[in-house]
């Protein structure tokens, strides 16, 4: 008895070997997972402050005198008191409103917001976060979701004059 010759060419379902691809895909996934570092969004306050720069009387008549903001620290490093040009300020919102008034007055008199300078005179023991809050308050305000820039020229008082 002779068996019929087996059909060599018959339609077969081609099974692709997926193993190497899945291996590579998992390797890639592990690489991306391990190299992932979640970065919190950070921003800068740009300050241009050469060494010779110290707030003194304005060098020309058009230049406005700098606003002096003094921040006093309590023993724990928190904010004890704040003054602006010698006048007491109740808080950062109050400071923002006063600075906004000065900037608007400067704009009304034909100046530019860039002409207004501010000098921060802080106690050495004050927490830096308070300084950043003060800089935030004077550098701009948010109205209707838009940022309105106020003072750009911010400097720290030189140590020799960092006294009340």
């Amino acid at each position, binding site marked *: 008895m002779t068996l019929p010759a087996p059909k060599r060419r018959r339609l077969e379902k081609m*099974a692709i070997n*997926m193993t190497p*691809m*899945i291996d590579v*895909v*998992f390797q*890639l*996934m592990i690489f*991306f*997972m391990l*190299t*992932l*570092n*979640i*970065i*919190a*969004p*950070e*921003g*800068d*306050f*740009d*300050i*241009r*402050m*050469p*060494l010779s720069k110290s707030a003194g009387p304005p060098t020309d008549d058009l230049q406005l005198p700098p606003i002096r903001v003094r*921040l006093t*620290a309590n023993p724990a*490093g928190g904010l004890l008191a704040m003054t602006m040009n010698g006048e007491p300020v109740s808080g950062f919102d109050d400071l923002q409103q006063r600075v906004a008034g000065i900037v608007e007055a400067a704009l009304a008199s034909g100046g530019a917001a860039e002409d207004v300078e501010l000098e921060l005179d*802080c*106690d*050495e*023991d*004050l*927490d*830096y*976060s*308070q*300084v*950043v*809050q003060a*800089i*935030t308050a004077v*550098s*701009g305000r*948010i109205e209707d979701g838009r*940022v309105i820039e106020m003072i750009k020229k911010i400097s*720290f008082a030189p*140590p020799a004059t960092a006294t009340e």
Partner: protein
Amino acid sequence: MAARTSGPATTEFDMTPMIDVTFQLITFFMFVLNFSEAEQDERIQLPASQLAKPAEGVVEIPITMQLTADGGVLYAGEILPVNQIGRSLEQEREVIIAAGKDPTLATVIVRADGRARTGDVQQVIRICQEQGFERFALRALYKPE
């Protein structure tokens, strides 16, 4: 001769959904991956501000000074007392000059902890000024309200 009617049972399960999900995951990780060298350190807790602008473009000559809460400066992988950073900054300035660049165009990025003393931050800035650096960027966490 008995014909083999059935071999060892091979079960084929459908891999398509798993591969779909895996590719989605890879795409997600590729998008969120940040290759830029962010100088972040968990020892520094930046103060938050709603007005801190994200840097516009790349800072041309950045020098990052990280100030910890207890007054140490984290610079080039080690913690130095504030009054000892002058020498490192001097070297930094020499490197910038040797590269044919102007040190006054360098930006010192100050990443100071919110609990650090303002006096220490000011001292860091003063030492940088003495080395001829003029541009400073006080870094804060951007936190919209």
